[in-house]
Each structure stands twice: as structure tokens, then as C-alpha cells.
């Protein structure tokens, strides 16, 4: 039986599905028997999900235009060389 500390150490690999079957079974057994670790696991999973759902920023048009102008200048300079 894993301790809670051992469970936590493996949490990232478990949530990323990077553990082998044997360890996975041990971790799953731990959360069926330890309500606190179940909650930590579930809320960490939700934490990751909510961040993955973050929307991409639209680059403000002035920032985009300055970037394009800088690249065009660089391109012109490259051609001169």
C-alpha cells in the first residue's frame, strides 16, 4: 500500500498517463482507499483542464503591425548585405 506522500510524488505521471500498468494499479487502489488523495487527484486534474481551456490571446493589432514592420526592416537589411 502506497503512502499519501508516495502517491503525490507520482501524481504528475499518473495524470499524464505515463505510469506503467503495475504502478497505475497501485495508485488507483490508493485513491479508492484514501478520500483525501482522491480529492487532490480529482481537483488537480480539473486544475489542468481549466488551464488547457484558456483561450489563446489575440495579438493586439498595433503589436502585430509593429512586429511585421520590424520583420520587413530586417528583410530589407538582409537583402542589402
Amino acid at each position, binding site marked *: 500500500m502506497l503512502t499519501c506522500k508516495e502517491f503525490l510524488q507520482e501524481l504528475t505521471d499518473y495524470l499524464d498517463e505515463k505510469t506503467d500498468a503495475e504502478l497505475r494499479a497501485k495508485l488507483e487502489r490508493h485513491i479508492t482507499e484514501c478520500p483525501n488523495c482522491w480529492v487532490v487527484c480529482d481537483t488537480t486534474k480539473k486544475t489542468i483542464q481549466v488551464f488547457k481551456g484558456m483561450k489563446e490571446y489575440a495579438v493586439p*493589432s498595433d503589436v502585430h503591425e509593429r512586429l511585421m514592420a520590424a520583420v520587413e526592416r530586417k528583410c530589407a537589411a538582409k537583402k542589402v548585405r
Partner: protein
Amino acid sequence: MATQEPVTDVSEETALVQLARSGDLKAFSDLIKRYEGKIFRLALHITQNREDAEDVLQEAFLKAYEHLDQFQGNSKFYTWIVRIAVNQALMKLRKRKSDRAVSMDEGIDTGEDTVTREIATWDENPEQKYSREELNSILDDAIQGLAPTYRTVFVLRDVEELSTEETAEALGLSIPAVKSRLLRARLQLREKLTRLFKRKGDDAFAYM
């Protein structure tokens, strides 16, 4: 709106890089449009400063343009530009703060005292409780509260969705170092979000 959905067609991207390399500015502009939103967000998350983030965005694409001939093509263009942008962003951070915590190599506790104080289930759906803008601002604030070393690893892995290997490569860290920082970052964010999202009246005592 200056961004468009990134297309993950690798062969199309390889063709764009080839064209850009031969001096086709339009092809390079297409690469910019594809990734500038992600790079700007990444730069904002790491530097926490809009002006610095804009500098990072420009410097990263200018460097990429200048060194296109060095791009090997065995990694994705996106991973390559992320690596350049992360380096620029970390340099900004070091310059601005002389912050000890900015060094990626610094010895970090690898999780001995991993914190899990808030033990409570969440309301089913934070997405329904807050508007998209409110939620984004909550998430930005939560990321801001992390130390730069954790923040950078977390943003690359869980926001930009790079693999552990790509994150390690971009930051010059070992894979175990990425994993231990990611664990700490995820748990710290879980603590912060649980304080906001926990179901009313739900706490550790419910399970005792």
C-alpha cells in the same frame, strides 16, 4: 484580430519554412500569424509585463528570421520558436528583477513538502460560474503567483501543451527536473483554485 488558428499540418509548415528561408517574406508572415498569439501569451506569462512581452515577441521572430538557415527541421517550427522566445523572456526577467528565483538551474526542493492543505471538491463547473474573461483573469492571477521557475515549466507543459521532453529541451532542464517543477506548480495552482472553486460547505471534515 491578428491571430488565426494554428494549423498543425507539418508538411505545409515545412514548405512555409523552406519558402521563408529562400527569402519569401509572405511565407514568414504566415508563420508569424500562425504562432504570434501563442508566443505573445507565453511571453506575457513569463515576463508578467506587456511591454517586455511585446519585445520578446519581436525579438523571437526577428531571431528566428535571421537564423532560419540553422533551423534543423527535425523539430517543429513551433518548438523552435518557443525555445527562442523562452530564452528572450527569461533574459528580460533577469534584467528587470535580478530575481534570484529566475535561474532555471537553482536547487529546488523536489517536493518533500508538497503542499495539499485545501482538501475540498469543486463546484461541478467553474466555466459556468464565471464568464470566460473572469475565468481567464483568475487563471492569469494564479499563474502570476508562482515562482518564475515553476511558472515557466507549467505554462510550457499545461498551457502551451508542449511535451515533457520539449519543455526540458526548451529550458535546458533534465526530465526529472521538469517533472518535479510541474508537480509543484500543479499542486500550488490546485491550492489557489480550490480556495475559489470549492463547493460551499465542503472541506476536509466532510471525509473524516
